[in-house]
C-alpha cells in the first residue's frame, strides 16, 4: 500500500468522520452535562435550592449510566438509538450513543468544578441582592471556568476515545479503520498510523486545553 493511498483513501476519510463525531458529541455532551451539573450543584444539600428528591433522581441516573461500560451501553441502547435516529449505524447513531454515555461524565466533572467555588462568594452575592440565576451565571459558572476548562479537556480526550470505540458498532471513523485494517486484515501500517493520528489529536487537545486554562485563570 502506498503512503498516498494510506493517507488519502483510508486515514483522512476516517479522520474526517472521527472529527465530525467528536465535535458534535462534545457539543451535545457539554450542553446536556452542563444542565445536569447545574441541577446537581443547585439542588445538593449545600446548594442554592437544596432538593433531596431532584438531586437523588438526577444523581442516580448519572451513576447508573456511568456504571455501564461504553460498548455494552452502546449495544444496550440500540432500540432507543433506532427510535431516535432511525438507524443504529453511522455517525448520527454514534453521536447519540456517545452523548448518552459521556454526558453523565461531563455532568460529574462540571459538578466537581462548581463545588470548588468558595461558598462565601455565593453568600456575598446573596448579601447584595443577587437572584439565583445571577448567582449561577456570575458566581458559580464564571468563577469555576478555570477548573471546568481542566476537567473538560479531560472529557474531550475521553470522548475521542469513545468515538474510536464506536467504530466497533458501525460508526465509521478512525476506530473502524483500525478495526477493519489492523485487527481483521493484520495490516500493521494502517493500525499504527491510526494510533499515531490519535496520539497527535490528544496532544493537540491537551495543548489547546492548557493554553485556554492559562488565559482564563
Amino acid at each position, binding site marked *: 500500500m502506498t503512503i498516498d493511498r494510506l493517507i488519502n483513501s483510508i486515514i483522512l476519510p476516517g479522520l474526517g468522520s472521527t472529527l465530525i463525531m467528536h465535535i458534535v458529541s462534545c457539543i451535545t455532551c457539554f450542553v446536556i452535562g452542563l444542565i445536569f451539573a447545574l441541577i446537581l450543584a443547585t439542588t445538593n444539600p449545600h446548594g442554592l435550592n437544596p432538593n433531596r428528591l431532584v438531586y437523588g433522581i438526577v444523581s442516580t441516573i448519572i451513576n447508573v449510566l456511568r456504571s455501564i461500560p461504553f460498548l455494552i451501553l452502546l449495544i444496550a441502547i440500540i432500540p432507543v438509538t433506532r427510535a431516535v435516529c432511525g438507524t443504529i449505524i453511522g455517525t448520527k447513531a454514534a453521536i447519540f450513543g456517545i452523548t448518552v454515555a459521556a454526558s453523565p461524565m461531563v455532568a460529574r466533572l462540571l459538578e466537581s468544578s462548581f463545588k470548588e467555588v468558595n461558598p462565601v462568594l455565593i453568600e456575598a452575592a446573596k*448579601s*447584595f441582592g443577587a437572584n439565583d440565576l445571577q448567582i449561577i451565571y456570575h458566581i458559580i459558572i464564571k468563577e469555576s471556568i478555570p477548573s471546568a476548562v481542566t476537567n473538560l479537556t479531560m472529557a474531550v480526550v475521553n470522548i475521542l476515545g469513545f468515538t474510536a470505540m464506536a467504530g466497533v458498532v458501525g460508526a465509521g471513523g478512525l476506530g473502524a479503520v483500525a478495526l477493519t485494517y489492523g485487527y481483521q486484515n493484520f495490516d500493521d501500517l494502517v493500525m499504527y498510523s491510526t494510533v499515531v493520528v490519535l496520539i497527535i489529536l490528544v496532544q493537540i487537545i491537551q495543548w489547546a486545553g492548557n493554553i485556554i486554562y492559562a488565559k482564563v485563570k
Partner: protein
Amino acid sequence: MIEIRGLCKKFGDIPVLQGIDIDIMEGDIYGLVGVSGAGKSTLLRCINGLIPYEEGSLQVDGVEISGLKGRQLREFRSSVGMIFQQFSLLERMTVLENVCLPMKCLKYDKKLMMEKAMKNLELVGMADKHKALPRELSGGQKQRVAVARAMASEPKILLCDEATSALDPNITQSILELLKEINRKSNITMVVVTHQMEVVKNICSKMSILSHGKLKISGGVEDIFLNHPEALSELLGESTEFPREKGKAYIEILKSSDAGKNTECILSALAIQTGIHFDIVWGGLAKYCDEVAGNLVISIDDAQSEQVQKFLSEKQAGWRLLEQKGGERV
C-alpha cells in the same frame, strides 16, 4: 433602626441564639463581640436575612425580616451592605467589575453604574487600581475594594463580619479609619462582628457581648470596659484580678468621659495635698473612639483609706473602693 427581641435560632437541635434582645440606633457603630461559636456571625446574618430565625422578632425600620421572601428579601438585602473576613472578591473580575457587580444585579444603567463604582473606589482610595485583579492586591486593598462594593447600592446598614481579623494591625487601623470616615460622611449604621477588642474600642460606641448564644451584656463600650471587666474576661483570656496584700486598701480611679470632672492631675494632687504615699498596682488607659479612658488602681495603708476617699470625693474624681480581701470586686 434595628430592633431585636427574643431572637432564637437553632441549627438542627443545637441552639445557636437564645432570646437575644438588642436595639441599634441609626448612625451607630455597634459591636457584636464574643468568642468563636458565640453566635455573633449567625446574628449578623439574621439581620440581612441570610439565615432565617425560628422565634422572636428582628425588625429593621419597622419591617420584620422573617416576613420578607423572594424579591422583597433581595430588595431589602440590597439596602444592607456586608463585608467579610476573606473579602469575598471574585478572583476573575477586575476591581471595577467587582464593585459594579451588585449594581449589575440590580440592573443599574451602565453609565450610572460606572460613575458610582469609580466614585466608591475613590472614596476607599482604590481608584487607581480599578483595572487590577484581586490577586494583585494586598489584604488591606482587597478589603477596601470589598467596602466599595458593599457601598455600591448606597446601603443604610453596613454589616462587617470579622472584617479586620485577617489583617495586620497597621492595615486594620487604616480600614477602621475608613469605616469611621464612611460613618461620619453618610451616617450609615454599622454592625461590627469581631473578637478583636482593639477594634471595638477604636470604632464602636455601643456593644453587646454574646456567650454560648446568649446575650451577656449590652451597653456603651467605655462603660463595659471600665465597669464590667468580668464580662470581658472570657474574651480577653486573662484575669482582671491582681495580687492584693492584707492591711492595704485598693482604690480604683476612673478616667472616662462621664466618670468625674477632675481627673487630669488627680494623682499628683493626691500626693501633694495629702502627703499620702501610694503605689499604682494595676490599670491602664486606652482610646475609645475619640476619647482616652481607663482606670488606675492605687494601694494605700488601710488607715489612710478614709482620708483618700474623702479627698477624691471632694475633687469630684471618679473612683471606687475595691474589696481588700478575697480578690472580689465591690
